[in-house]
Structure formats: structure tokens, C-alpha cells
């Protein structure tokens, strides 16, 4: 029941007196009316902006935050108001919902911010009024697509995992040529050969001079038959090899064989093999010549190389209904006009409109405004209807075209946006990395500076920026204390990545093993020795703010890519990792993992965590980031 109508309930109850004289049974007793003296003004202070409304207004929707007792949690005694630390601009709309019973979506607001506010105040988005619902749904869908796009791209990049078999890495090389040099080379080579093959097909048919024996024009294909044959063979061999490689590498061979691209591949190379098999038999050579037409399908192989072509194909597929409508209406119009023209021209002598199907040609040529002029109406009637035909043709064709165009534009811009986001991602990641590493040192500096009293003068000598740490807010100090407790619990210490790396490289043996399991368990070995050494010396290396080593680029990228994903599971697993003996984490660089057996939990896992926790308040994010980095 709409809230506003609740105000009319007293009226409806009063009007029930009209039933009383005709009632067949006695009435039930009325409910106990609780004292309604509560109707006062409520002050809602949302980040400083004061909103006031009647208590009854809010209580119209008792299953939301403001309408239920949940709002008591936000009551602020000193000022006798309810304080919410949220966005006042969006709150305006939420409060209007209580007042008018309709929830509107402001177009200029970000969809996720709005969704968050709705979720906070316990309002389901489905009650958004019809006026704004379309817009809301559209924006939401766009946002979801964008996030999905990002995730897909990230997932694609994720497969930098080492545990890819040869087959999987080959498939990856085929699908994303920019991942490795070999793949890129292969990509360009196949592209080149496709172009060569298509050009050869075209040039084959060009007349190339007159042969002296016969007084007939020879095409280049006949003149240089051997050369063209060799070229064709080479191209087909490359294509065959490529097809077989793809077939081997495909994760699902059946799906691969069914896919459009593989069918195009097969159709492109089959004519050659069929030609080989068939001899110069006169009967089948006609069919053989027809088969050569299929060689032109090689040009479709370019769609692997061109995103634009793929987009075009995708657009046509998605506009199937519009195209179907276009076709249908055209067919209808053609039939109508062909019939009319035929009967109109029946009277005239020597008319070319011999039958209705013959008139089809005229109608099509006229409606598409081609106007070849090979069939022309001669009677007045025919001319009148012919002009109507051409006018209507323009209209019928022009109508569905904008729909197709807008579809294409939308898809094209989406792919442009994805490309741009990918390009910007690198710079964004670099900036985030710099910010993180800046804060990552906070804990280490704290340890150096604030932890042990007797170290202070030493610390201030070592790091010039120790002064910064003295002005730590309470949060920081409490946080550092917590990390310190953790160190004491596990009897390991946090260090920065570089130190860890160097220590690992010292200890690691020469064999780069690609072992996937329990790789992390062996890593701390070197570190513990480093740490104990360092403990005695009580001096730390000044961590570099730029923690990116030579090979670090991909790690960092991988780590920061993971910002948005898999928050809880990873953090939980990483928490467990601290207390477990062996941690089967996926390691980026297994070559640095030694074969030594270690019984202690892995401080490197905790190291970056702690370091990062210091930098950002978003624990989950940082957990993910660092775990995956190792």
C-alpha cells in the first residue's frame, strides 16, 4: 500500500459506518489504538545538512532503516538529532521517497554511489518510479558490463601463471598475440600470407598478354601457372599448419571445430586439397572451378587480425531483428510493386515486363535507386507507379538503418572505452604503486624509530625522514603496536620486499624448478637467516620507495590488478597462511624457490601484508595485493 494512502486509512475506516446497518454479523472489536502523541518533528542531520520531517512520515515504511528502530543507533544525544555520515545530496532523494512514496533516480549521480546509499538505508531499488526506472536500469547494466569487461580483461591477463601446460600457453599465444614475441611473429606472418593469397587469387584472373599460339587473351594465372601454383601451395601449407596447431592447442576441440573461424579456415584450404586429389577429369573440372570461388573466404581470416571487422560482424549479429525487418518489408514492397508494374505494363507492346518475377528485377533496381535502365516502363500508368515505387524504396530502406548505425556505434565505443581503460590502467597502476610503496615503509620506519627507545638516536641518524613518524596519529601507533605483537607471536619479523628478494637469491640453489606445490614453504628459509642476522645487528636497510625491481614489473601489475577481486577468500587464506606450516600459494617466480624444507610459517607472506596495512586502511585490498605478489 502506498504510503500516502496510509493517511487516508482513517477515512476508509470512518466510511465503514456505511456497512453497519446492513451487516449480517456483529463487528469485531476495534484494535487498541496506541497513543498517537508521537507525531513530532524529527531532525536528520546528514553530514551537516539538516533535514526535518514528521515522525509519521518516516514510519510509513517500517522495513527501512529510517522507519524502524534501526535509526536509534544513529541518535546523537548531545544535539538530540539523528546523525548520518552519508552523502546529503543523495539523501535528499531518499527522504523524498518517504514524503511522496516515489523514489527517483537523479541522472547526474553515479550509479554505484546511489546503489550504496539505497542499500545503506534499506530501500530496495525495485521501487524506483516508472519515470526513472528505465534510466536506472540502463545505467546499472552499463556499469555491470563495464565491470565485467574489466574482469574479463584481468582474467585474461591473470594467466601469467606458470602452471600452464605447453598446450595452454600455445592457445593463449594464439588468442592474445601481444603476450609473447613468438605469438606476435606468428600473427604477422599469417596476416601477411593471407594478404598474399588473396592478392594472388585476384591477380590470377587479370589478362596478361596474348599468347602467340592461340589468338586468345591469357590471364596471368594461365601464363604463370607454375608460379601461382607454388604460391598457392605455400599459403595453403601455412594455413594448414596454423589450423592444425590451433586444433591441437584448443582447450575444447569440439567447440573449436564448431566455431565460425575454424569453419572459415577449413573452407579456405579445402579447395586446394580437393584440387590435388582430383585429376584433370573433364567432368568434374567444372565443379572444381566452382570450388575455387571458396578461396575468397580466405579474406575472412582477416577478422582475427582486425577488431573492427569483428565489431562489424558482431553488430550485424546483434541487429539481426532489424535486418530481418528490413528484409521482410523490402520483400513485401517488391512483390507489391512488381505485381502492379506487371499489370500496368501488360498493355504496352514489346514490354520487357514479361512476368511478375521479371518485374522483380525492375522493382529492386528502382527501390534501391540504382536505376540501370535496362527495364523501363512505357505506359503512363507504369511511369506513375514506377515513381511511387522509387520514392517508397528510399523510405523503406532508410528506416531501419539508424537502428543498425546506433548499435554499431554503441558497440564500437564500448570497445574503444575498453582499449582506453587498458591503456590507462598502466599509468593508474604506477601511481597506485607509488602511493602504496610510500606508505609501505611506514611500519618499517616505525619499527626503526618508535619501537625501541634506545634506538631513537640511531634511527634518526639512519633515516632522515624519521621526524615524519614522530607525528603519527593514534591510529597509526595502535596499528603498529598490533603488527609488533604479531611479530612477537610468530617470532618473525616484517621486512620489505627487496631485502627479502636479495636474501632469497642468496640462498636459492641454481636449479630453477617449476614446482607448483609447496613452493612458498621453502621460501622463508633464506629470510629467517637474514632476519636473525639483522636482529643482532639491529640495523635495517632503508627500503626503497620504488620497490619495483627488474622482474618486478609483472608482479606488481598482477598484484594491483587484483585489487578489486576475490577479497574475502584471499585474505582468509592469507590469514591462515600465517599459522600454517606449508602454504601452497601460487608463486610468480618459482625459480626463486628453493628445495630446502622449512618448518616455519612464511613471513614474506605477512611482510607485505603488514607493510601494506600500514599504508591503507582498506585491509582487504591490501591483503589481496600482496598475497598474489608472491
Amino acid at each position, binding site marked *: *500500500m*502506498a504510503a*500516502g*494512502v496510509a*493517511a*487516508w*486509512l*482513517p*477515512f*476508509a*475506516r*470512518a*466510511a*465503514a*459506518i*456505511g*456497512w*453497519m*446497518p*446492513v*451487516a*449480517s454479523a*456483529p*463487528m469485531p*472489536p*476495534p484494535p487498541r*489504538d496506541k497513543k498517537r502523541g508521537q*507525531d513530532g518533528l524529527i531532525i536528520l542531520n546528514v553530514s551537516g545538512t539538516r533535514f526535518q520531517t514528521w515522525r509519521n512520515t518516516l514510519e510509513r515504511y517500517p522495513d527501512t532503516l529510517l522507519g524502524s528502530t534501526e535509526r536509534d543507533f544513529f541518535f546523537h544525544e548531545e544535539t538530540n538529532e539523528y546523525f548520518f555520515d552519508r552523502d546529503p545530496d543523495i539523501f535528499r532523494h531518499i527522504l523524498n521517497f518517504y*514524503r*511522496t512514496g516515489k523514489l527517483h533516480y537523479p541522472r547526474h549521480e553515479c550509479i554505484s554511489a546511489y546503489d550504496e546509499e539505497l542499500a545503506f538505508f534499506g530501500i530496495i531499488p525495485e521501487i524506483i518510479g516508472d519515470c526513472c526506472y528505465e534510466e536506472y536500469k540502463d545505467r546499472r547494466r552499463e556499469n555491470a558490463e563495464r565491470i565485467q569487461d574489466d574482469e574479463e580483461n584481468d582474467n585474461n591477463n591473470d594467466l601469467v601463471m606458470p602452471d600452464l601446460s605447453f598446450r595452454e600457453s600455445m592457445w593463449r599465444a594464439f588468442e592474445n598475440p601481444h603476450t609473447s614475441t613468438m605469438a606476435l611473429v606468428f600473427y604477422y606472418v599469417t596476416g601477411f600470407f593471407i594478404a598474399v593469397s588473396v592478392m594472388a587469387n585476384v591477380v590470377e584472373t587479370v589478362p596478361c598478354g596474348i599468347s602467340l599460339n592461340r589468338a586468345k587473351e591469357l590471364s596471368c594465372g594461365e601464363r604463370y601457372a607454375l608460379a601461382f601454383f607454388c604460391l598457392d601451395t605455400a599459403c595453403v601449407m601455412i594455413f594448414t599448419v596454423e589450423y592444425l596447431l590451433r586444433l591441437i592447442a584448443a582447450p575444447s576441440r569440439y567447440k573449436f571445430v564448431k566455431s565460425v573461424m575454424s569453419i572459415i579456415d577449413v573452407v579456405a584450404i579445402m579447395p586446394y586439397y580437393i584440387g590435388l586429389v582430383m585429376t584433370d577429369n573433364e567432368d568434374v573440372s567444372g565443379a572444381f572451378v566452382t570450388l575455387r570461388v571458396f578461396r575468397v573466404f580466405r579474406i575472412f581470416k582477416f577478422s582475427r587480425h582486425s577488431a573492427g571487422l569483428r565489431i562489424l560482424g558482431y553488430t550485424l549479429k546483434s541487429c539481426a531483428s532489424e535486418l530481418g525487418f528490413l528484409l521482410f518489408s523490402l520483400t513485401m514492397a517488391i512483390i507489391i510493386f512488381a505485381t502492379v508494374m506487371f*499489370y*500496368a505494363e501488360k*498493355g504496352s507492346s514489346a514490354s520487357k515486363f514479361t512476368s511478375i518475377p521479371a518485374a522483380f528485377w525492375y522493382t529492386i533496381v528502382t527501390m534501391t535507386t540504382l536505376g540501370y535502365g535496362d527495364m523501363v516502363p512505357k505506359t*503512363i*500508368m507504369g511511369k*506513375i*507507379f514506377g515513381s*511511387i515505387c522509387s520514392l517508397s524504396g528510399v523510405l523503406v530502406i532508410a528506416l531501419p538503418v539508424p537502428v543498425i548505425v546506433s548499435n554499431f556505434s554503441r558497440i564500437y565505443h564500448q570497445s574503444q572505452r575498453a582499449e582506453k581503460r587498458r591503456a590507462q590502467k598502466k599509468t593508474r597502476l604506477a601511481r597506485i604503486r607509488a602511493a602504496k610503496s610510500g606508505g609501505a615503509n611506514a611500519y618499517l620506519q616505525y619499527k626503526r624509530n618508535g619501537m625501541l627507545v634506545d634506538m631513537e638516536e640511531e634511527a634518526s641518524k639512519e633515516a632522515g625522514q624519521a621526524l615524519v613518524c614522530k607525528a603519527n596519529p593514534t591510529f597509526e601507533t595502535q596499528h603498529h603496536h598490533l603488527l609488533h605483537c604479531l611479530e612477537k607471536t610468530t617470532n618473525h619479523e616484517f621486512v620489505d620486499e627487496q631485502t627479502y628478494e636479495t636474501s632469497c637469491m642468496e640462498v636459492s640453489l641454481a636449479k630453477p624448478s617449476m614446482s607448483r606445490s609447496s613452493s612458498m614453504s621453502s621460501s622463508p628459509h633464506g629470510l629467517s637467516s637474514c632476519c636473525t642476522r639483522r636482529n643482532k645487528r639491529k640495523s635495517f636497510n632503508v627500503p626503497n620507495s620504488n620497490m619495483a625491481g627488474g622482474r618486478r614489473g609483472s608482479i606488481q601489475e598482477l598484484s594491483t590488478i587484483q585489487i578489486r577481486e576475490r577479497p574475502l577468500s584471499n585474505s582468509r587464506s592469507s590469514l591462515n597462511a600465517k599459522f600454517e606450516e606449508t602454504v601452497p600459494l601460487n608463486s610468480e617466480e618459482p625459480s626463486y624457490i628453493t628445495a630446502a624444507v622449512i618448518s616455519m610459517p612464511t613471513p614474506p607472506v605477512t611482510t607485505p601484508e603488514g607493510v601494506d596495512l600500514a599504508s591503507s586502511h582498506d585491509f582487504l585490498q591490501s591483503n589481496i595485493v600482496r598475497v598474489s605478489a608472491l
Partner: protein
Amino acid sequence: MMNLEGLEMIAVLVVVVVFVKVLEQFGLLESGYDDSIEDELELSAVRHRPEALEQLEAQTRFSRKELQILYRGFKNECPSGVVNEDTFKEIYAQFFPQGDASTYAHFLFNAFDTDHNGSVSFEDFVMGLSILLRGSVQEKLNWAFNLYDINKDGYITKEEMLDIIKSIYDMMGKCTYPILKEETPRQHVEIFFQKMDKNRDGVVTIDEFIDCCQNDENIMRSMQLFENVI
């Protein structure tokens, strides 16, 4: 020598018709009726402001605060200040989602719309409520009689009663227990007339009605039911 054959005639006709349509489009040929004036009337919204609070306080039995609350609810739902019959039906229908309350709402609307101008203003609304909630039993019974007397001629006939009873049963909807039968409203009317129509003349006058109700304990008790609604 031009011999216009059948199909040629049609062609010429088509051309002429198209020509006329084009002229119409450009306004050179006036044809069809003007419905532009009607559109303009709809644009001006009806606005009504009620009498002052003091006057209403004097005319009804509501306190100032109660009037304030009532007006706020009223204005919220009907910002223009008056309720027309469709809005009234809509609002009333929200309380009875299972059945069809439109007929009864129609009768109710007529009962509230005392000056019969097709819309219920806040004064009408509040006067009606004042009688229903704060009035004496006599006044309430009067009001009920007025409701049943559809054509306001002072007599309730069997047909009028049948309409009223049917509309009340309509509000119940389909899913009832026991299942609503065709003759149930008619039987209900018979029972009512047997009780109320003392002189068996086939109509119920206001005096018969009030007399009868005052002698019926159930009805008297039920009249007091909604005293504390506001």
C-alpha cells in the same frame, strides 16, 4: 486520343488524394474539426484552497491539531486540493486489493460530495468525517441513509439497496469462503427489507430506518466502533 482505362483512373485518383493531403498538411485547406480548444481547457489545473482553519474548527467537531493532520494527509495525496471521482476510487481501491471497490467508492463519493459538483473538496471531506467520527448516532444513521438512497429522493427502494449490497460484496472479490453465490446479495436485501420495512410498502423511509436501527443493539454498538480513529 487519351483513353482513360480503369487502372489509370485509380492512378489519377491516388495522385489527387495525395495532393489534397499535402495541402492540408500545409494548412492551406481547412478540413476536419478543431480540437485545439479542448486541449487548452485541460491544461489549466484545478486548484482549490480550503476555508480558514478557524472556520473549519467551528463547523466541524475536530480540534485544530486534528484538522492539521487531516489536511496534511489530504493535500499530500491530492495536491490540487480537490479529489475527483477517479482519484477517490483509486485511493479507496488501495484498501481493498482483492475485490473491486469502484462501485462502492462511487456511492461513497456521492455521499461525500454534498454539493454535487463532481469533486470532493477538503471541506466536504472534513464535514463528512466529522459526522462519521464525532457525530451523534442520529447523525450517523442519517448519513448512512443518505448513502443508501442513491437518487436522494428520501426512499430506499429494493433496487437501490441491491446495488449497494452488490457493491459491498464486490469489494470482497472472488476468493471468499463460503463461495459467493448469485443470489446472496438478493437474499441479503430481503433480510434487510424484512427488518426495516415496517409498513411493507416496498420502500424504506428515513424514519423507518432510524427507528429500526435504534432498536437494534448490534447496529447501535457498531456505530460507536470508530470513535477513536483520529
